[in-house]
């Protein structure tokens, strides 16, 4: 709802409100993207994410982090589809592991095991795990990013734990989420 160019209920003009959102959350969104793709792709996705936030400013909720990361996630997914890079995340993780673990054979082997286990997860399972482990989100926030119900999300880390920790039962199918 708008009045005289200002969003009713939000202090300041659209530009002021966007500036606050941009300054408060730029680092979190940038970290999210840089963790998942190379610098150039991350920069492109970062620009696109905040462009969408600007254009859809009236839709941005009062607590915007989950919404912003959800947009960033979709932008990244579209990049990967456009570039036919289905395994980009695992490649990125594997490259990082190679760079830091050459002189610690045991640690390197452990990393390889975890990387392989993550690679076996579905994209939703991977993202649910990383939103908690890499981005420090709680379950409710992570559910907001994925557009899932919290109930659907609650099952995912369990599934990942079973994969990584033991040769246990097969991981159940993920529930549908808003892309």
């Amino acid at each position: 709802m708008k009045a005289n160019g200002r969003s009713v209920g939000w202090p300041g003009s659209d530009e002021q409100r966007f500036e606050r959102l941009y300054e408060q959350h730029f680092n979190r969104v940038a970290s999210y993207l840089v963790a998942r793709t190379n610098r150039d792709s991350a920069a492109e996705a970062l620009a696109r994410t905040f462009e969408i936030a600007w254009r859809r400013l009236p839709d941005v909720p009062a607590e915007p982090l989950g919404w912003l990361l959800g947009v960033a996630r979709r932008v990244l997914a579209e990049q990967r589809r456009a570039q036919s890079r289905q395994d980009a995340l695992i490649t990125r993780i594997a490259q990082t592991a190679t760079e830091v673990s050459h002189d610690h054979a045991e640690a390197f082997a452990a990393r390889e095991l975890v990387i392989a286990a993550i690679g076996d997860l579905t994209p939703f399972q991977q993202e649910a795990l990383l939103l908690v482990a890499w981005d420090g989100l709680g379950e409710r926030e992570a559910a907001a990013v994925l557009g899932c119900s919290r109930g659907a999300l609650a099952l995912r880390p369990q599934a990942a734990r079973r994969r990584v920790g033991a040769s246990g039962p097969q991981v159940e199918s993920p529930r549908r989420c808003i892309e």
Partner: protein
Amino acid sequence: MSQNIFELVRNLRPADAGRVDELFPEGRRRELFQQIVSSERPIAAAPARRRLAPSRRTRSWPSTIRRARRPALIWTLGVAAVAAVAAALLITGSAIRPQSAAGAVAFRTAPNGDIVATVTDPFAAEGQLKAAFAEHGLDITVNLVPVSPSLVGTVVYTSDNGGASAIQPLHGGRCVTGGGGCAIGLKIPATFTGKGYITLGRPATPGETYESQASAFAPGETLHCSRLLGARVATALPVLRAHNLSVEWREDITERSSDGSSFGHSQTDPRPPANNYIWDALMTAPGRVMIWTAPTPWPADAAHGAAVNQGC
């Protein structure tokens, strides 16, 4: 493997992710900010646009900032029609009604030039809905999935290969969701030539689990107006029995890793302490609810509380 899984995964995080201040110094950030706010205005604002003069455009950020505003196809669900159909379905138990494509979706042009498409029967056979869009040159696949009652008729999933999330959900429904917003329609650019995938919510048939659900306390859900959000487990038990609900109890826990970081998640808790407080609840299927509790009182969220208690 005895290490905390989250700690194991955290150790794989690329180092660059912790160096964004170096990767994107202040000058670059301001440059991007200025590019963005000089471009197309927020959608609900007046249409006047300022454009960057060509000499000010830079190449340090990708030139992905849009300039043109295209007429959009807005697809909405007739809310009254949805409510009527949903009520009929709950009474009859029928999930699918065959109907001609022409009767499943109605298209019209709005005064501002946007094209509005209203699905008059969201529970027409999936093939009929796809055919309705196809008659207007749109390759949109519609899928129906079982959802908790308040999400019946809403959009629970969208995807497309048109680039940059061409298909956008339109919010405005009355359902209360954890992800924010209640999508009751879609905006599809009139120039969209890709493939779209839309999933709508339908009532569950016996034996099905919900593929998407709103808070169990939200309007239209089983525990709406029960006042159990924030109540103690002991208070909730007789209410849950009266609703004949099967409960999966969960507790929120925080695990700490060796580097001091913490990870919040939940796990099954077969016998929650009677003095624990209820923080959240979701119906997972007709007659089955998942409830989260914690030993500390629910931090009253005025906005969320008001949203789920509408009409109580």
